[in-house]
């Protein structure tokens, strides 16, 4: 009786064992690769290009002369060099805060109006999302090299790193609660430990991104905002020092990676 039972068990393990973790991982990589070879992400780039050239605001000006760090209107490589310190604003800025800066200075728009709808949806992406897609795409193939030499860039890095570990809110969460230990995941989404360059690099090379589950486009500012929401903390202001510092910290940790253009997330 026992021998027969053992025989059944042994046979069963051969055929009934769940798929090995590595097989699942390989097949999901294949899925992601195939999606990236034919993804709607580029549609947002088209939308962004039109917005970049569209005269808006009281000054009826386009964003075409916006200085993203490499000179007025220079798009190629600009995203790869962000975040960085900007003298005219006397602070470190990421892509979205810099776009906001140009909206207010070049186009004469109020901060209130320009940030009224920074996160869009599938039916209507926000200006920030489309512009981010377009600008980021112009750095395809270039190595990520955020600013590191200016004292404020160093301070932003340190602030970002401190915030990564800072536990707060009703759940006493920090980034480390989810992104602090190797091998963790939420459903099928792996949670990269962004303190390690090898993990930060692939993240930094694939944001902003098309989000498959919502058919929308997501940016780093959105990601920070959403993470804080998930942690049940107060909503950070768009382009706040805290969000820019975190983005800067992650980008510096992942520097050197070749930017592959707006990516795709689940």
């Amino acid at each position: 009786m026992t021998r027969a039972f053992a025989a059944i068990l042994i046979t069963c393990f051969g055929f009934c064992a769940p798929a090995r973790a590595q097989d699942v991982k390989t097949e999901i990589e294949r899925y992601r690769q195939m999606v990236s070879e034919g993804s709607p992400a580029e549609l947002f780039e088209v939308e962004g290009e039109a917005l970049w050239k569209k005269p808006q605001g009281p000054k009826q000006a386009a964003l075409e002369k916006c200085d993203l760090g490499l000179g007025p209107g220079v798009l190629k490589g600009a995203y790869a060099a962000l975040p960085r310190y900007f003298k005219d604003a006397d602070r470190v800025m990421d892509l979205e805060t810099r776009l906001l800066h140009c909206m207010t200075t070049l186009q004469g728009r109020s901060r209130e109006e320009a940030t009224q709808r920074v996160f869009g949806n599938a039916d209507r992406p926000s200006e920030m999302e489309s512009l981010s897609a377009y600008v980021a795409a112009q750095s395809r193939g270039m190595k990520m090299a955020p600013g590191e030499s200016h004292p404020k860039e160093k301070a932003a890095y340190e602030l970002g790193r401190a915030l990564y570990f800072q536990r707060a809110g009703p759940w006493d969460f920090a980034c480390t609660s989810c992104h602090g230990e190797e091998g963790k995941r939420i459903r099928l989404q792996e949670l990269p430990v962004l303190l390690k360059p090898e993990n930060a690099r692939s993240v930094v090379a694939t944001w902003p991104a098309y989000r498959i589950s919502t058919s929308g486009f997501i940016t780093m500012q959105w990601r920070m905002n959403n993470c804080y929401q998930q942690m049940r903390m107060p909503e950070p202001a768009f382009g706040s020092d805290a969000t820019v510092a975190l983005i800067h910290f992650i980008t510096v940790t992942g520097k050197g990676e070749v930017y592959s253009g707006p990516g795709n997330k689940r």
Partner: protein
Amino acid sequence: MNRLRRTLLGALAALLAKPLAALATWNESAFGAKTPQDALKGIGAANPTASKEIVIDAPQIAENGAVVPIEIVSNLPGTSSIAVVLEKNPFPLAAKFEFKEGALPYLKLNVKMAETSDVRVVVAAAGGRYYSASREIKVTIGGCGG
């Protein structure tokens, strides 16, 4: 006389205004079929022969059923159409592509899958015969909702 001329001109203008709309057809009964068998019947491919000449390249696992990439090549001589049937979808027939002179029997598209199921590719080839090949794709989160 004038009224007739006006009516005729109006009808002609309407016909020319949206040429694609006037000439395009859409197989409502096949696309409305709720079972794979009825979908196949709807496109006239009730009993396709299994064929290894139809190559389906797709991931074994789709992270999100809302976007499932599928790449198809038919090596069957005289391929004139490729249809995609998602067996467990509420309406299994997803698409039917017809290839004319100049087009190669190749297709890559993104489909929505409601749940893990077989993806069946049906090809019309030389002699008007139908062939098919199948592949299972596991879906972790179904993708047919809004």
